[in-house]
């Protein structure tokens, strides 16, 4: 209770500062753009950024909401951030729809509690277009350095991609029979042997449906549908079920989980076509109580320290050159060719299609 009351009073007290700091930042961003355009020496930008660093340290705290639930890396990154800037990070985790509704209703009630939200590209579009709960992205030093395909139209500072592939039970599938591509899944020999994340609801299965429907085509998806897939909605438990021998194949599997299942009779396969992926990143929430700390965090997440942490776990980094020196199996997953992702604007249409095909 005390934290909250102090928090609300803090918010009230800082609202004036906040307005000022936002104005300041608009000016800063503006001048940054101008200086970049004019080709001014880098130290001018550095000086501006240095001001953000100082202000962020003064704020001393960051409230992070994340839709990536239960990942130990979240805490690891927060600790690294605290070590770098001396800013404490408080983390609130909940599943995507729950945390989005919390932010929406908090803001509607005038409670601006959180600074940064770690979520997916698709969700960001909803935050931005439907809830209008996010601020435009600030330009930070690292934001210029990330790969071009990760510089987005939506106001999300990309951080990493979660790759999805195929998992097999090595006790049930002989090496010669292993599926090598998404197309192999349609082979009739797998009929009744595939456990699949439910493609009829937002989630991994739907991601697979979306990307293969677009890239391989409706016929392929229909062929897979005739395989008598068994549906599930629990990613991790499904991996275990497959490992225990209930099914030969589980798909699509979160590739980065491979390290948690070492010792089990399973193999993670990167399909030849590539891995469907979900792009995760940070958004700045409206009227963030610690706006400068938030900017530092956004920047930090795109910097080499965090990018290397994620690459080391098998996620796809957005900053080039982060996979050097990784063990071969991790490197292969982290560098896997990105196949496709979902498009929020087409979601209703594609969900309806999926429901129609996978009755």
């Amino acid at each position: 209770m005390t934290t909250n009351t102090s928090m609300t009073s803090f918010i009230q007290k800082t609202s004036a500062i906040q307005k000022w700091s936002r104005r300041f930042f608009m000016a800063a961003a503006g001048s940054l753009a101008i200086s970049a355009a004019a080709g001014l020496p880098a130290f001018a930008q550095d000086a501006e950024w240095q001001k953000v660093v100082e202000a962020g340290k003064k704020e001393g705290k960051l409230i992070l909401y994340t839709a990536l639930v239960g990942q130990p890396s979240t805490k690891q990154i927060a600790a690294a951030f605290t070590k770098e800037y001396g800013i404490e990070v408080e983390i609130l985790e909940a599943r995507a729809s729950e945390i989005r509704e919390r932010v929406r209703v908090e803001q509607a009630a005038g409670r601006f509690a959180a600074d940064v939200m770690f979520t997916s590209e698709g969700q960001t579009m909803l935050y931005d277009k439907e809830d209008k709960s996010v601020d435009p992205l600030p330009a930070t030093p690292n934001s210029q350095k990330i790969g071009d395909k990760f510089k987005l139209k939506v106001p999300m500072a990309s951080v990493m991609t979660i790759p999805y592939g195929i998992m097999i039970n090595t006790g049930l599938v002989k090496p010669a029979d292993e599926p090598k591509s998404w197309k192999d899944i349609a082979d009739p020999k797998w009929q009744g042997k595939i456990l699949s994340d439910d493609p009829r609801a937002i989630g991994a299965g739907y991601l697979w449906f979306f990307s293969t429907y677009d890239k391989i085509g409706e016929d392929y998806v229909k062929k897979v549908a005739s395989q008598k897939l068994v549906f599930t909605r629990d990613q991790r438990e499904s991996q275990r079920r497959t490992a225990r021998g209930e099914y030969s194949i589980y798909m699509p599997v979160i590739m980065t989980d491979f390290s948690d299942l070492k010792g089990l009779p399973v193999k993670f396969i990167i399909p030849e076509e590539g891995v469907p992926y979900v792009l995760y990143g940070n958004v700045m929430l409206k009227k963030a109580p610690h706006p400068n700390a938030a900017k530092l965090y956004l920047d930090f997440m795109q910097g080499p320290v965090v990018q290397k942490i994620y690459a080391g776990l098998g996620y796809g980094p957005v900053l080039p050159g982060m996979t050097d020196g990784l063990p071969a199996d991790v490197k292969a997953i982290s560098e896997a060719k990105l196949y496709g992702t979902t498009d929020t604007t087409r979601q209703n249409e594609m969900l309806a299609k999926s429901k129609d095909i996978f009755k």
Partner: protein
Amino acid sequence: MTIIHNRPLDDIAETAPTIAGNAFTRAFSGGSLWRLIGMLVLILILGFLTIYPLAMLLYGSLHSTPPGMAGEFNLNGYRSIMTTQNLIVLANTIGISLAKTIPSLTIAVFLAWIVARTDTPFRGTLEVLITLPFFIPPILTAMAWGMLANPQVGVINMVWRWLTGGTDPLVNIYSYGGVIWHMCQYSIPFLFLFMVDAFRAMDPSLEESSRMCGASRWTTFRKITLLLMLPVLTSSFMLSFIKGIETFESALFFGLPAGIKVITTDIYESINHRATPDYQYATSLSFAIMGLMFLLVIWQWWMLRGKSFQTVTGKGFRPSVMELGPWRWVTFAFCVLFFFITVVLPIGQLMLGSFFRFFGFYTYDMLTLEHYRAVFANSEFWRAVRNTMVLGLLGATATMALGAVVAYISVRTRWRGRNLIDSMAWLPWMMPGMVLGVGFLWAFAMLPGPIPIYGTIWALLLAYIALGTPVSVRVMTGAYHQLSYDLEECSRVHGATWAQTMWRIMVALAWPAFAVGWVLTFFGIMRELSASILLYSVGSETLAVVLMKLWANGNAEQVSVIGLMMMLLVIVFRWVQLSFIKARISKL
């Protein structure tokens, strides 16, 4: 002999002003203003806890956008639920719920009777053991049953194939039967706990008279025991049936692969798995279901009207047990079988699995204590334990106190508004948890700024009290139905003050029910996730939130370790509680 009509409630109230009334009424006699104020306060509390969040949800169902967003009022939500498909799903849901409630209630009655009214050996130990599955998070028992009874490599089917040499599986948990079975795993212990003290508190002289008049044991059981239990039985039936309509874990886990749909999986999907959460649809559907369920409450009122079910009277009360002779080994065997199937099989899996690196891979080199170490070294876990203990102790006590007051007024007074508070206390039970969680979020977040509830531990506490109230009121209602009015009057005649009477009679005699209600509420709080995840704040994580995070990250074994520790706590609680009850009964 059917129901005792000797002192109907109306009779008491009519004579009350001049001679007696009951203790509570008299305490306020001449001060009806105070009574009015007390009643108003109670209505305000219940209103805040139940009507306010539901009103937010009602707004959500009638408005094109959730609270705080521009939109318009319309009936699109209600229009969109009126589909043939939903009607089929509804029929399916009701069918599943009946299919689990009726056998559950039958088994629970039988078990309660065995434990409370017969001389079955080891019934004290059995009483604690057979309720254990109720206290394990559903996701864990679901996982355990998935391992035991999947058609491909389930342990039961492997054993069956080995025994018979056949290839067909004996059981398949991913089916209607599986969904119902998994629900029964929770409803049988719940109903048993809910009823067992009512059985214990029954004066055996009524049964004895029946036997002496020549009725058979079966007729006596039917016409005396069961009929006297009518308030408890109808309450049990309703609690269980309504819960059956709202449960979604079983259907999601075991029903989805088999294409089984229930109303709550539809609601779950509309919030969690659509392009954007459709709160208007989810809330409209929930209110439609709620309307249907309220018919049940009215049915119960109608059933119990004007009847009296007092079994605890001022006369000598000798809670003796029925001597079954050699049959007691049959009842014993039944309990042991029940214990083996519902407790040993699933919990044995969890216990075994917690000592291996992975569930289901029981080889020597996989043996480890790492899951225990990981849990004990997890500071977030300990913080959650602290929070949950505080919330559980405060929440369960407050909930039971509130429930006792509401039940007292609705059963033992004829005050204006007693039906109102009784039905208000039902409301949270009729709203699916995940929708009600959203209701609390909206309600508490939208409170004016200076009221510091949202984002604090108080938000969780208030939500838990609201969620627990239906059970606490039902438990206490059942207990108060059984206490005779003579007891209160007798106490007053002998010069006891109102407070003494309340303490000695209404509290002391209803204590076992209070204790059971407390345990149910406490563990309800421990398990609650839907509201917790929407209301917790940084630092106020509860155990359920931590479990969810671990589960989401694939640490099923650690979740089991915590589940087993929760179960240990139950054993301690129940053991203490039952020792107290026994000590009390022997004093009577």
